[in-house]
């Protein structure tokens, strides 16, 4: 009779104790090593992926012109400043000629003197020639006289000698003219040289372009060869990019690329690989390449700005592909965890290339349709109990 009577107090006590015990068992099984590990799985599919190679580069000008003087001097004036556009042949500045103009004057005088020298040499020649003609005719006359025995042989000799001497003088005068002519040429050349030098003190833009640097101010002394004005051709901007050698297999010219400027991280500009540099960076283990924009960004970004470049390597052939979160190394072997029914098995694989979205090629070890573990709440071992959780669309396990 007693036991059948429902004791209210007993009920209330049980109402607290029973859920408590259930909660206890739930807690004991759900946490700690007895618990199973939640995982998400994905089916292996065959796909062709386009690996993307990423690198960091700086925006540079293809050609940088450093305009300076060939002789030391003091900067006289500069007619452009940074940011100015110049045309080919435009004078952008001038080095102080100092005494060069005076030297030019001296040289011009020297030219005139040389010309005068030529005239005098010519006069000398005429004189010598006249003498030569006279003595020659004299010699002829006296020869004929000698034949007529009208004069002595000695006289004949003398006249002969005079003719010879006059000849020699004439040759000398001729040579004198040549020398004077050469003298003129030399002085003229010297003058030309000075003119050129004078001209070189004019800093002239070699092509159309943009002035990027002004390295000296009027009044500064500059050495021969020191850059005074630096300019670039803004249409010739390219990106000098460095790619890690580990990933840069498959990189070649003409591949399409995307460039993201550090200052405009949202936009990406279309570009293409122009060339791979034959010399790589030995220390940083990077391959160097040049990438040109398909259309230059407007307004022109400053030279030296950092860019992120992604090059799309060629589409690889279709093989089994898994997200790279699936790949683990267990006991020195690379592989994935394959789900067979509810059992877990580690399958060693040989991996290939990766694309930017994290898909990695599996060249050996899996076939399409195999189910592999992508995310897990903790590290898996061969005997782990797993609970498969449906991918919540965002592909996370949180």
């Amino acid at each position: 009779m007693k036991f059948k009577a429902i004791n209210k107090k007993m009920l209330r006590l049980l109402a607290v104790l029973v859920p408590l015990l259930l909660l206890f068992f739930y807690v004991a099984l759900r946490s700690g090593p007895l618990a199973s590990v939640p995982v998400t799985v994905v089916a292996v599919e065959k796909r062709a992926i386009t690996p993307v190679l990423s690198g960091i580069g700086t925006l540079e000008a293809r050609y940088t012109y450093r305009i300076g003087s060939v002789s030391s001097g003091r900067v006289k004036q500069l007619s452009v400043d940074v940011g100015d556009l110049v045309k080919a042949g435009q004078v952008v500045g001038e080095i102080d000629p100092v005494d060069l103009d005076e030297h030019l004057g001296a040289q011009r005088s020297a030219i005139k003197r040389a010309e005068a020298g030529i005239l005098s040499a010519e006069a000398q020649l005429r004189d010598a020639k006249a003498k030569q003609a006279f003595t020659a005719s004299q010699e002829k006359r006296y020869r004929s006289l000698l034949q007529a025995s009208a004069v002595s042989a000695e006289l004949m000799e003398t006249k002969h000698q005079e003719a010879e001497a006059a000849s020699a003088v004439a040759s000398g005068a001729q040579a004198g003219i040549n020398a004077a002519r050469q003298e003129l040429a030399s002085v003229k050349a010297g003058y030309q040289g000075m003119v050129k030098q004078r001209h070189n003190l004019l800093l002239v833009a070699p092509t159309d372009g943009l002035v990027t640097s002004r390295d000296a101010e009027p009044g500064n002394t500059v050495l021969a060869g020191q850059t005074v004005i630096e300019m670039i051709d803004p249409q010739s901007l390219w990106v000098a990019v460095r790619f890690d050698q580990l990933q840069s297999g498959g990189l070649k010219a003409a591949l399409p690329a995307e460039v993201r400027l550090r200052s405009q991280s949202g936009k990406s500009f279309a570009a293409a690989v122009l060339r791979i540099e034959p010399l790589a960076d030995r220390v940083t283990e990077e391959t160097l390449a040049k990438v040109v924009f398909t259309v230059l960004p407007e307004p022109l970004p400053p030279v030296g700005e950092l860019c992120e470049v992604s090059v799309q390597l060629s589409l690889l052939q279709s093989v089994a592909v898994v997200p790279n979160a699936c790949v683990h190394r267990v006991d020195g072997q690379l592989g994935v965890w394959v789900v067979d029914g509810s059992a877990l098995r580690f399958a060693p694989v040989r991996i290939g290339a990766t694309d930017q979205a994290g898909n990695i090629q599996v060249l050996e070890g899996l076939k399409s349709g195999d189910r592999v573990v992508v995310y897990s709440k903790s590290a898996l071992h061969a005997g782990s109990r797993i609970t498969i959780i449906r991918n919540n669309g965002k592909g996370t396990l949180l």
Partner: protein
Amino acid sequence: MISLAGRDILHGWVRFLMTGFGLGLLIGVTLSMAGIYRGMVDDANVLIDNSGADLWVVQQGTLGPYAEPSSLYDDSYRSILGMAGVARAANVTYLTMQVRHGGGDVRAMVVGVVPGGPGEPGQPGFLVAGRHLTGGRYEAVADVKAGCALGDTIIIRRNRFRVVGLTRRMVSSGGDPMLFIPLKDAQEAQFLKDNDMLLQQRRRTALNPLFNRPGVPGLLDAVIASQTTSVFVNAVLVQLKPGYCPEAVAKDIQRWQRLQVYTQSQMRTILVDKLIATSAKQIGMFLVILSIVSAAIVAFIIYTMTMAKIREIAVLKLIGTRNRVIASMILQQAVGLGAIGFVVGKIAATLWSPFFPRYVLLEPGDAIRGFIIVMVISVLASILAITAALKVDPAEAIGG
């Protein structure tokens, strides 16, 4: 025979349950403290296990890279790769620093890894979301403790990083979440100074007449450029080919490369015995004290509970109840209280542990040990109380 213990409990079931809950919370606190201690040690162990390395190669004469700073040239790994027994060697940098995320700062250990793909030494072992680093710059894989979501931006020094993957239980020995970024970015973050410092440095160099000679135009630029390269890493992680003894390979590397090399067990000693020793001892001592105090309180509560029934016990004795029956009643109540306390404590500890800022590891071994201790204490305390109860003179029940 009815169960006297059962009836007594039923009669005051609310008080009994509440006492049990109170005890349970105390036991839960003690279990949590044990979990905190174990969590600390686990943080250190997990750091070693997760690095995926068999050997750590660090600067000669240092205990690095975790216990002491260590700097190696980043091309040392090439010579290490060439040694017998070495299957893989990868550079790695570690720097614990504040990174900016969302509106605020997070303290994280920034790990620079060679983005050679999953399975390389130094890479996170498993992901809970997203993907591994794929070689782009300014990408990051973050531990969930950092509080980031996929796609978030983290600012480290000068650069912005996009979170592309999330992982779990990748923490430093101090419990800080790890942030994996490409090695080059990490080298920049660690060894390159920030903008201000760089400007100062350039200015100082420019003022130095040795470097700023007018007759040598390119010298200053060359010097400044040389100052801003980063060629150091903190360690090289090595994975061995199967069949090679770690100690032997370590000795080889140490001898020929003149670098310091640690095996896994040596690293564990450094981390557990040196780095976290003080904190662990601190917590360990407190755990012992807490356990003793909890045991005392459990004992006290059971004792008091019994002494409150002294009159009933005297009456029972007087009307002829055997000592054994009285003792059994008290014992059953004590054990029941202990059991409820343990159940509540284990549940509470499990439910509130995830909210702690650091990892709390509740091992089933600890729970079982705790259960045994609680039961032993309950029995001992009730025996004390029983002895007191049975000394009661039933004559007290009859007035003078």
